[in-house]
């Protein structure tokens, strides 16, 4: 005997979800795995341990991590201001946040490269006053990835901040907590899981980002060459197996990192009694 579920349509919904996951995610990814299986284990290791490949991994994951953390900080402040304070032009600013989502990333890359290059609007000023060159350096990649990453942080934190029960803050104040204590002990722990989601989304996006980075990065091997670019380069040279080997490694590392973030989130949620 089958038990009927209170929520109708479980079977078609599950079937659809599985079908969709297979079609869009699993089949392309397994093709990637199969393709790289054509390589022997030693060939695979050789491709992966190539110093140029290793440095590109370091550049990609390093810049993405830094950019995600900075985007986390900036995004938090932006979301806080947008939710907490009424001011003229708030809606306009709110709409601006989504722009990096809509803008073709290559356009963003060209714009950023233009203003941050040593003769550019901001680049010149940074060079003359701080001696810092942004474009054509790993720092340029970080800047591009912050630009791409901030909307992810803002849009994940905003709803949580909006729903945050401000009477909790008043309660903390009435119990004698200072403003700083209210923030660190009441507000932040409640926002933290959402912040973590936002940062990990920004990070994942940053690792895979191509268009906005290549224009500003300079793409100097061993210094500012990102993994996606290396994959494209291999493809252009008809080294399909090599490209898939790098792609697969990237996939595994990304998966591992996201898994760690998810576990961290689970821990944070459990600690704060949200599950």
């Amino acid at each position: 005997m089958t038990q009927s579920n209170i929520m109708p349509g479980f079977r078609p919904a599950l079937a659809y979800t599985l079908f969709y996951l297979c079609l869009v995610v699993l089949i392309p990814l397994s093709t990637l795995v199969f393709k790289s299986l054509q390589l022997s284990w030693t060939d695979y290791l050789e491709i992966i341990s190539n110093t140029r490949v290793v440095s590109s991994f370091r550049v990609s994951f390093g810049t993405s991590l830094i950019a995600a953390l900075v985007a986390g900080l900036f995004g938090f402040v932006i979301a806080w201001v947008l939710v907490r304070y009424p001011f003229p032009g708030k809606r306009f600013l709110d709409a601006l946040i989504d722009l990096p989502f809509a803008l073709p990333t290559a356009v963003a890359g060209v714009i950023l490269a233009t203003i941050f290059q040593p003769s550019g609007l901001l680049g010149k000023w940074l060079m003359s006053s701080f001696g810092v060159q942004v474009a054509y350096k790993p720092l340029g990649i970080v800047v591009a990835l912050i630009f791409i990453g901030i909307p992810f942080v803002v849009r994940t934190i905003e709803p949580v901040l909006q729903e945050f029960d401000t009477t909790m803050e008043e309660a903390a104040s009435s119990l004698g907590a200072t403003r700083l204590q209210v923030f660190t002990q009441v507000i932040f722990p409640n926002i933290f899981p959402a912040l973590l989601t936002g940062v990990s989304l920004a990070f994942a996006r940053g690792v895979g980002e191509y268009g906005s980075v290549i224009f500003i990065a300079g793409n100097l091997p061993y210094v500012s060459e990102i993994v996606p670019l290396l994959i494209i380069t291999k493809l252009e040279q008809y080294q399909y197996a090599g490209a898939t080997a790098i792609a697969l490694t990237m996939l595994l590392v990304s998966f591992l990192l996201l898994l760690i973030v998810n576990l961290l989130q689970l821990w944070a949620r459990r600690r704060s009694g949200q599950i």
Partner: protein
Amino acid sequence: MSILLNNISKNFGKFAALYDVSLEIPEGELVALLGPSGCGKTTLLRIIAGLETPDFGRVLLSGEDKTEQHVSRRGIGFVFQHYALFRHMTVFDNIAFGLRVKPRKERPTEAFISKKVHALLELVQLDWLADRFPDQLSGGQRQRIALARALAVEPSVLLLDEPFGALDASVRKDLRQWLRNLHQELHVTSIFVTHDQEEAMEVASQVVVLNQGRIEQQGAPADIYDHPANAFVSKFIGQTNIFDLSETESNWLQRAGILAEKPQGIFAHVRPHHIDIVKAEEASGSPVTLKDWQHLGATIRVELFNPQHNGAGATLFAEMPNERFRELNLTKGDRVAVHIKQAHWFN
């Protein structure tokens, strides 16, 4: 701690929430701020707490002017309508919060905090919930934890915003009794906001009736019930039958006994238990028809219809003990006579 409010006014935009409110609350009282929704009672409570600043007027706690002082320095305990428990903390951590955020010099040891928290949990009879999170508690439990949390810092005033508003009727009854007992035990000056007149009468030692940002009357529950200062208080506290002298036939009122003394106003407010019913043939009195009745426990509420009167005032309510009603042996549609024993007059 005694509380003195001098000429408090507060506006939200164009809406005047409080208008020139002055109030004195002696130490150790359990006071109810009572009024219909939107009358400014919660705003008044929040001004006492320091969660809101008045546009005009001063707040004096124990004789000291605290109008400008931040809520965290006032030494008050505030219990929020929806409890405002910290969702990310266990019940234990919630109650310990006020002790742990003290400046390092004043902060007690963890051992002391633990002892104190468990003592408070015993006080609210929920010691077994220490490790739970707020989301895992029922409404009544949350309310008591919120109270324990507020009491942890040993406030000199306890302020409660609609403390029983979100609870179901039976839990509310228990908690009212419990709050009274707690107050008798701790003797901390307490103010609670409510829109439920029964709750105010049952729990408080002093009731302050507010309406449209002003205080209508302040006094002991019995005082307010027996001697309402104005028509609003009379209507708001308990049930009242209102007779409009200009509309009701004077002959009818004469026979009901209400005009035995010279009327002192245009409206006569009569409590249901001040209306006596006798069988129509037995005595003088004004004729009415018995429409229906409801059991209210020890008393019966009788719904009467005055056929000589049109409109809203035609239905009267009388209350009497069950035995008395049984003696009368009435059925629906019977003609009876009413005799009014006492009335309050207002203009």
